[in-house]
């Protein structure tokens, strides 16, 4: 969704004039401020950010973290709780104007499973695990990818060849397949720990795309004048890499790490669903779905909530990634819709309405396609 260049520039505004307006917008701002400003202008990313933070907050405060208790009365592990609604149906009701019977949360808003366990508590534990796993995967693969990409792009030569051949190894087998084998290995580790080990293993698996991107950036940036200047001034390789080149490649790194995290949560839940990922006693959203898929006909709510949370997390992270990409893209401009431009043009110069060579309504592939 990047590449928002507009070929159909409104003709009447001259090029220099437009540049001046654009510069006015960023004058006196640091790079960070510009990026932040652009990011907060991206509505999708903001909404995504809001929902992701809300999910994180909900998941971690409700059932608590480790020994710290949360505000929710159940932990999701208590069995044989009194059944509130027939069949363990959710006790959450929609408000009246949405066709419900008055808004209520009740004792088991997400329902209860066949053992009488509180589904809300279980789903919240699942969200916690999946989020932690997602962040660990993001962190590990970001560190590895940046390290490998930087070394190979900066030093080139034999090191580059060796490292790139290593990344070739990783792309010969589909990620899901190596993931399943690695997950099978980490699954033998007993206790809650297996989810962290699993996350690190997945991180070790997913760094290759980032490494390639960072390498490309480094290959281009190392030829630039400011790097020559730093080298002439006597800076060491470490200093050039970390102080001069890396900050210039930060956009690519942040954006692709974010997008990688959204695919990481899908990978983790898929593997857990297949039984090669996170296992008991740890709960992940994927393992919840695989556990409850048999009861879909009798207790569909057991199945809805975990899936819904996967979608929410993946979607919000994707939107944040998209917002970041737009924010870091220097070519990004705010472009009004065709109709708005037409209106503005019509208001400014009533005679020049046909100036913009916009795509006509009969632009091929129309109604007949």
């Amino acid at each position, binding site marked *: *969704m990047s*590449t*928002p*260049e*507009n*070929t159909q520039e409104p003709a009447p505004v001259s090029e220099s004039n437009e540049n001046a307006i654009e510069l006015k917008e960023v004058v006196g701002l640091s790079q960070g401020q510009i990026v932040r400003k652009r990011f907060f202008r991206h509505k*999708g990313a903001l909404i995504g950010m809001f929902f992701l933070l809300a999910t994180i907050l909900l998941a971690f405060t409700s059932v608590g973290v480790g020994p710290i208790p949360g505000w929710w009365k159940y932990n999701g592990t208590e069995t044989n709780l009194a059944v509130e609604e027939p069949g363990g149906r959710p006790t959450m009701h929609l408000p009246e104007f949405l066709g419900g019977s008055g808004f209520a949360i009740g004792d088991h808003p997400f329902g209860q499973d066949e053992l009488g366990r509180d589904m809300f508590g279980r789903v919240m534990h699942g969200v916690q695990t999946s989020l932690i796993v997602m962040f660990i995967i993001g962190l590990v693969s970001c560190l590895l990818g940046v390290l490998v990409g930087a070394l190979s792009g900066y030093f080139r030569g034999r090191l580059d060849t060796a490292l790139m*051949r290593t990344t*070739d*190894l990783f*792309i*010969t*087998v*589909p990620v*899901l*397949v*190596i993931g*399943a*084998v*690695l997950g*099978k*290995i980490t699954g033998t580790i007993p206790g809650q720990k297996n989810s962290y080990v699993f996350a690190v293993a997945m991180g070790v698996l997913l760094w290759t795309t980032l490494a390639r991107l960072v390498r490309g950036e480094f290959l281009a940036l190392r030829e630039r004048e400011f790097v020559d200047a730093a080298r002439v001034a006597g800076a060491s390789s470490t200093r050039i890499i970390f102080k001069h080149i890396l900050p210039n490649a930060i956009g690519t790194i942040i954006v692709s790490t974010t997008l990688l995290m*959204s695919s990481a949560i*899908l990978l983790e*839940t*898929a593997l857990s*669903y*297949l*039984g*090669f990922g996170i296992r008991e006693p740890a709960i992940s959203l*994927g393992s919840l*779905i*695989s556990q409850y*898929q048999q009861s*879909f*006909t009798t207790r*569909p709510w057991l*199945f809805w909530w975990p*899936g819904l949370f*996967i*979608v929410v997390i*993946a*979607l919000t992270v*994707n*939107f944040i990634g*998209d917002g970041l990409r737009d924010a870091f893209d220097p070519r990004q401009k705010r472009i009004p*819709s*065709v109709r708005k431009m037409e209106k503005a043009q019509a208001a400014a110069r009533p005679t020049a309405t046909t100036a913009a*060579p916009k*795509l*006509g*309504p*009969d*632009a*091929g*592939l*129309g*109604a*007949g*396609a």
Partner: protein
Amino acid sequence: MLNFLTRRLVAGLITLFVSLFLMYWLVDIAIDPLKDLRESTAPNKEQLIAARIKLLDLDTNVVVRFFHWFTDVLHGDFGIAWRSGQPVSDLVAHAIGSTLQLVTAATFLSLLLGVVVGIVSALRQYSSFDYLIIFLSFLLYSLPSFWVAVLLKQWVAIGFNDFLADPKFAWTTIAIVAIVAGVLWSLAVGGTAVRRWQVFGISAAATFAMIAYLQVSDFWLEPKIGIVLLAILGAATAFAIAAIFAGLHNRRALYTALTVVAIGVVLYEPMQTVFKGDIFKVGSHGAGWLIFGLAVITLVVGFVVGRLYGGPDWGVSARTGAIVALIMGAMIYVDKVMQLWPPYTKALNGRPIPTFGDRTPELGGNYWVGVLDSFTHLMLPTLTLILIAFAAYTRYSRSSMLEVMSQDYIRTARAKGLPERVVVVRHGFRNTLIPLATIVPIDVITLLGGAVITEAVFARPGMGALFVNSLDGAEINPVMAYLLITASLAIVANIVADIIYASVDPRIRLDA
């Protein structure tokens, strides 16, 4: 070129070897073939364990075992899956067939839909339609496929089967669907307010009429296209294809398309007799090849009709003719398959959409029953794959089209005064396909490794299922055969992608 090929192949073989070695080692750590015995309470437990260790050669070092396995593979022996005792090559042959069925339709359809929607979305950049498509593709991209698959099973399969018990839509439902379709079309076509209303009216009315027709003609119980509908749909296709690829002013192309449709309509009745022929009867083979041959003949006929209409630009007519001919042929084929629907539903007690497997066991019946049976089994898994791949292809073709449409040659084409259709189809669309050409082979081959999750949810015995089950069953030979196939295909796909890229984009030189 040859130099490039050798270099890449040698590098690929080395990568393949190393990755196979590493995977053998990892898989060996991951699986535990003695687990069931260790937990057993059999009195002769020790003996059984010793016997299995001997059977699987577990006392030997894993490196040595890998080289044993590797030399066997070089001699064409993939070993046996020890739990069932079946040779791995048989297992793989079965699995590949099932996976191919699944992957072909899914890739083709998602590519078609994804590219068309992506391009329209790019052409209408920053419109409501564009934003809708962006949101939709984000949503589909974030959907966990296993979740969607189970939802589809529940709602589409069971819901549709329930619907068939009393196949009537309420008229209000049809009206709502028609209005939604009208809104979508008017957003996609865009233009002035008047034009939007026109498009809305026409498309809503058409949708309404179509569903109403299906309802009245009892389509859900006795689906058929028939000769009348074939003529109408064919004519519509002819106009649409000619309008997009040749422009309606190109009378030769239009007449080609219409002639091809006429040939198709005339051949409809004779084809029914052909389809009753001996080769389609129970127990005979080769029907698939015959259909393939017929498809090729259809293509050639369409091409020849276009050539005969001649003119200075006969290539356009020939291409249009070939595409229309193929669509006509497909419709006649589908019509024949549909004719089997009533007995098929009856045989399955009125619940024809299955939720697992890739064929109904002990169904019997001739070639057409088999085809229909595969179709119904393919429906949901294909839909799952399409939903997810569609998102990726839409995003990809959209951004690729945006990139292309901002190039200088597009401006030049417009400046020469070419009609917008030619600019979009000839200059824009074709160049949009270049980056796609490098992605599709890799995608297809990754999918050949089995849509692991989809196959697991729908219990289709494909490559992915083979991998998952063997890994679960601690059988290293099928797992390694699977890895060998997917890894070599991945390497080949990467080389093919490079070659395609170089052949469609003359600026790239492989030998450099």
